[in-house]
């Protein structure tokens, strides 16, 4: 903050009763928190994620349309942030900091501003998301899909058998359920081929 502004605030505060200054500070505090909170809510909405930015609107958001998470029997949807923005405060803030990277790519390097550039980077980008999801045991999937509330009797026999096998082999959701909302990258590694270290601490507690 420029020194002149600071001096002005000091002078203003010194000319008033302390209680008035305290209440003014109180209002400033509430305003700041409201602004921060509203920004977080707004930037975690489908409106913001899918329509505000060229890269998302023309690629991933278009592909997502009419997939099972957009349109299904019950009309219960999962939109962009449901899968790609963490719910818990610390991972959420860390993820939001990562948005600086998006702005860098958009404004400075123009890394995926055409369909061709996006397709060329699809494998890299997909691997990044798969690694993230493997690292936190598909936390965002599990926020909605709770394993202990799944009714095996309502699942197909194939699904039951595969889930049982996945439990045994310590696979996580994204290992099999990939490319369900966006086009599958062609030719490269799938999530099961990716090496992700999950041994030290639960990455999900931070990232």
């Amino acid at each position, binding site marked *: 903050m420029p020194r002149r502004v600071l001096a002005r605030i000091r002078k203003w505060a010194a000319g008033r009763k302390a209680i008035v200054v*305290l209440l003014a*500070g109180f209002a400033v505090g509430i305003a700041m928190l409201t602004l921060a909170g509203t920004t977080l809510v707004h930037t975690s909405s489908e409106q913001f994620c899918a329509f505000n930015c060229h890269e998302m609107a023309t690629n991933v958001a278009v592909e997502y349309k009419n997939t099972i998470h957009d349109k299904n029997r019950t009309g219960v949807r999962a939109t962009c942030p449901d899968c790609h923005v963490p719910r818990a405060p610390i991972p959420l803030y860390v993820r939001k900091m990562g948005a600086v990277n998006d702005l860098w790519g958009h404004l400075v390097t123009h890394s995926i501003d055409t369909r061709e550039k996006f397709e060329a980077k699809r494998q890299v980008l997909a691997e990044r998301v798969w690694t993230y999801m493997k690292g936190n045991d598909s936390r965002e999937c599990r926020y909605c899909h709770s394993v202990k509330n799944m009714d095996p009797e309502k699942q197909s026999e194939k699904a039951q058998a595969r889930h049982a096998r996945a439990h045994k082999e310590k696979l996580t959701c994204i290992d099999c359920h990939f490319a369900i909302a966006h086009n599958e990258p062609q030719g490269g590694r799938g999530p099961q081929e990716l090496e992700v270290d999950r041994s030290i601490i639960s990455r999900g507690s931070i990232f």
Partner: protein
Amino acid sequence: MFSFIRRIRGLWSNPGSLGVLVGGAAVGVVVFASVGSFMVYANSETFCAESCHEMTVNPAAEYKGTVHDVNRSGVRATCPDCHVPHGYVPNYIAKLGLFSDYWGHFVTNSIDTKEKFEAKRHELAKRVWVYMKENDSRECRHCHTSASMDAERQTPKAVARHERGRNEGLTCIDCHFAIAHKEPDGPGPQELSAANAPKN
């Protein structure tokens, strides 16, 4: 301790400073964060289903194993998803309605036994049905978007009934009632429309 009190009293006589301003901002942040966190906590399944005797032994127990609790995909809707509005203003109004719960819990003991709850079941259900009819099943629709329903994945019976529901100006709760709690004896939501709920 006394110096703290003196400092508080000084707020009314002493002049302010930058420190006081920053201190006030810190208090504002803490107070507002507490209010917000409490709102989040008061909208959790832990709070609604497990903190209070009346809810735990009656509606929460009945809800266990229903389709909103256990289903194919494991995607759940818990108490607040259906019973607490998601918009800000309706949320605050609903939270103020909690005083009615406190009054019933501490003063009148209105449903503290299973018998009392059963005796009031129809009246309580009616209250929820009217609320849902009046706002066109807003909480249902927060998750279940008509525009995102795939008719081809629904049974022909469901498609036909939804069509009829739209034509007759019905709302979700008119048909989908008693799906998470036991059905009370007496008139259902569709019989209430003429008497209580204004059409949207």
